[in-house]
């Protein structure tokens, strides 16, 4: 079924999306090439190496730690039966709803010298001052690694678990029959089979880590991201900031390249329908409780403790923190998150489908172009988005001059700018999730559908989409939750009188008074939980 090499509508669509979503970056790169930058060479000579090293350590640390947390969890919940498993299965996604900077704040409050933990220790052991004993300092690079991994591991957990569920069960059963221990089967069968999904998830996690600003800034850990901010807002040099973003883009390309290489080796197309409650391993006795304990530990540290502390704040500061505007902020947050996740799902579906139906050297490019926005820190992205949008706005105003209507900032001064920026930023998440689901659908299904007289479009809507339901939902859900938490881009692109929960919370966090915004912070979590629950339920029913 080789299509002619003329422009197909799929091709046009995919390229339009790819180019459209990478325009902001193109503007930024253009900016980076503007002349030499004295500021950049000064940074190069002084601190840039420290920043780069910190960034590499941070990303490596978060990736390794997330893997240590998420892989066992994914395997346990996909293949084993143990006490509380049905609850853990969805509960382990909960930390996704917490912004990293909030848990960083909460844990700092809990664990620093003046926090309840150390005070209690001092009372117990009669220590007098900070010189009498050693206690780890959370506001360090390792501390930042732990905080970020705790809220990002669910990406890997979710994607890995889905991959295991969609893998051929028979292979794992066969490995059992051949006398492999669960551990052997995990390392020799499950892991290699899901390598593509794992690498995709880790690529997401590393990009997300790279874009984190609030947490590392709060912990005073200097990374390339903080350097971009300093350079642009301190040295007022967008050119130098764009050059530093260029270094970050190199990292991104490495991440994407790794992901692609891992995909190449993966050609397992077998779809197992009705993977439901069959489980391979019954963990009874102490093994079951060990599994329960591990899940409980992660869940407590990453979710229950921080949320408990937030509840405690909310209880004590209720008078000051209760604010009738919440519902309005929550509604506005929901509104924008919903728009963005639907758009991201649709465009990623189109692009990935194009990659599938017209495989060739160049077909992967639109998707890769479109994914580049992800590694840009929110503030930089916001500016990168404003560059082309204001240009269009200006041209439009010039063109309409004298027609009696002045549109003003039609694109850059409205919600459009925010939605566009979010789609640019989170497209990669949707793309990754949709792509890894598509990979598992055997091409023979497409051929069957085509030979039965269905067109490309019908194949997509009637054959693929039902099969992809879970992958699409996962994609939409991840994007939705990210939108709820997104801060820097929101701060810079908000139209007048538009607040999201995140921006509302941030004005207090930046003043070290999270207590006063504890209820809004809880709202972010709560609103993130609703879709988590909903998606989980629909998956259950689907099974």
């Amino acid at each position, binding site marked *: 079924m080789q299509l002619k090499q003329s422009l197909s509508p799929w091709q046009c669509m995919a390229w339009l999306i790819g180019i459209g979503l990478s325009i902001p970056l193109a503007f930024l790169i253009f900016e980076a090439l503007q002349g030499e930058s004295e500021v950049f060479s000064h940074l190069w000579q002084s601190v840039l190496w420290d920043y780069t090293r910190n960034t590499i350590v941070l990303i490596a640390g978060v990736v390794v730690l997330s893997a240590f947390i998420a892989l066992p969890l994914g395997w346990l919940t996909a293949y084993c039966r143990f006490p509380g498993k049905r609850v853990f299965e969805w509960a382990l996604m909960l930390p996704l709803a917490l912004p990293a900077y909030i848990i960083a704040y909460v844990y700092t409050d809990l664990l620093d010298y003046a926090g309840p933990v150390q005070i209690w220790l001092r009372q117990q052991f009669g220590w007098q001052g900070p010189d009498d004993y050693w206690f780890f300092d959370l506001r360090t690079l390792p501390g930042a690694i732990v905080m970020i991994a705790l809220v990002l591991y669910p990406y890997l957990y979710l994607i890995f678990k889905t991959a295991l569920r969609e893998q051929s069960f028979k292979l794992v059963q066969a490995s059992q029959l051949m006398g492999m221990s669960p551990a052997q089967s995990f390392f020799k069968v499950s892991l290699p089979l899901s390598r593509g999904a794992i690498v995709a998830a880790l690529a997401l996690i590393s990009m997300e880590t790279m874009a984190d600003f609030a947490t590392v800034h709060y912990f005073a850990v200097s990374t390339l991201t903080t350097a971009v901010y300093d350079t642009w807002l301190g040295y007022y040099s967008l050119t130098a900031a764009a050059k530093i973003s260029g270094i970050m883009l190199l990292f991104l390309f490495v991440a994407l390249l790794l992901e692609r290489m891992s995909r190449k080796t993966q050609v397992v197309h077998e779809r197992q329908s009705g993977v439901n409650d069959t489980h391979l391993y019954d963990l009874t006795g102490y093994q079951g409780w060990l599994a329960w304990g591990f899940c409980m530990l992660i869940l407590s540290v990453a979710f229950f403790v921080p949320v408990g502390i937030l509840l405690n704040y909310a209880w004590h500061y209720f008078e000051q923190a209760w604010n009738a505007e919440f519902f309005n902020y929550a509604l506005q947050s929901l509104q924008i998150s919903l728009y963005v996740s639907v758009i991201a799902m649709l465009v990623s579906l189109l692009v990935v489908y194009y990659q599938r139906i017209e495989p060739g050297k160049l077909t992967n490019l639109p998707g890769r172009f479109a994914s580049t926005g992800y590694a840009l820190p929110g503030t930089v992205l916001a500016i990168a988005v404003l560059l082309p949008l204001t240009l269009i706005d200006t041209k439009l105003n010039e063109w*309409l001059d004298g027609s009696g209507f002045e549109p003003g900032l039609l694109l850059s001064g409205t919600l459009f700018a925010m939605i566009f920026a979010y789609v640019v930023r989170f497209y990669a998440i949707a793309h990754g999730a949709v792509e890894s689901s598509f990979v598992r659908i055997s091409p023979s299904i497409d051929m069957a559908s085509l030979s039965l007289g269905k067109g490309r479009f019908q194949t997509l809507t009637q054959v693929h989409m039902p099969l992809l339901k879970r992958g699409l939902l996962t994609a939409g859900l991840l994007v939705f939750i990210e939108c709820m938490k997104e801060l820097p881009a929101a701060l810079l692109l908000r139209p007048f009188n538009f607040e999201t929960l995140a921006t509302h919370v941030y004005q207090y966090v930046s003043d*070290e008074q999270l207590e006063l915004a504890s209820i809004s912070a809880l709202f972010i979590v709560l609103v993130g939980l609703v879709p988590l629950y909903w998606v989980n339920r629909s998956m259950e029913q689907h099974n």
Partner: protein
Amino acid sequence: MKSAIATLLAAVTSLSAVAADEVNIYSYRQPFLIQPILDDFTKQTGIKTNVVFAKKGLIERVKREGKHGRADLVLTSNFSAMIQLEELGLTNPIDSDTVDKNIPASFRDPDGHWVALTKRVRNVYSSKDRAGKLTSLSYEELADPKYKGKICTRSGKHPYNLGLVASMIAHHGEAETKTWLQGVKANLARKPQGNDRAQVKAVKEGLCDLALGNSYYFGKMLEDSKQKAWADAVYINFPNQSDRGSHLNVSGVVMTKYSKNKENALKLIEFMTDNKAQNMYASMNMEYPVKPGVELSKLVASWGTFKEDSLPLSEISKYRPMALKLIDEVKFDL
């Protein structure tokens, strides 16, 4: 064709319907600080205020939006932001007798490109138990080895610290300031982190004996049930009283060049320089009002009078880029 499109656009956007009686504000200051003042302004004049708050990047946004931007005013929390806007040619001169009458000449741009609204001092807080009151302390002394491992501060790149370093360059030159910075860095009890409040907390905890911080935080902490204990553990000291005086920073306002509501913007600026708003700044935010004769809050007044560094802000701000460069060169934050 063109008119059809124009009509269509007008129909689907409400943007063209700019209400006659409003003023749009980009604010570097948190809404909860300025909202009461804005509410009062609306009550008096009927002019609606719309705010976008952000900690970073508003200047850049004004710059990108250019002549179609909707911001009429930018409220800043330090002088360098205002001067940056002026240098970019994004300001509109504030021409008002009321403002000129209310604000002393040293606290506004000669051509009216910016106006300071409140003053704050860069103080040194000292532990009551371990350091006592330091009446004769100077910023220069913070580099003295006797304070090794005893000083806490927020990031050197924060505008408040950059302002201080810039003023050191203005008084002592680049080389001497670099040596001073290296000395202060060697005296730090921990890597620069947190905000000004967090430094006072660290003194209370015994992590350090001295901390740099702005004056108004001290007042605000005394009002906060949780933070009162931190503030109670320290004395507030005004450095360099025996020579040039303490370093001042200001918060302020500029009118944007392309403001569509210049009249309303001017009304708001005038309102902010007048007794009522200046009083609110003084009583609610514990800042020093810029308008002479406006009463300080009781608490702030109790800290006593002090000598201010009289070097003009516009002079100090010239050295801000150099200050930032030095902070990087000595790796102050790392």
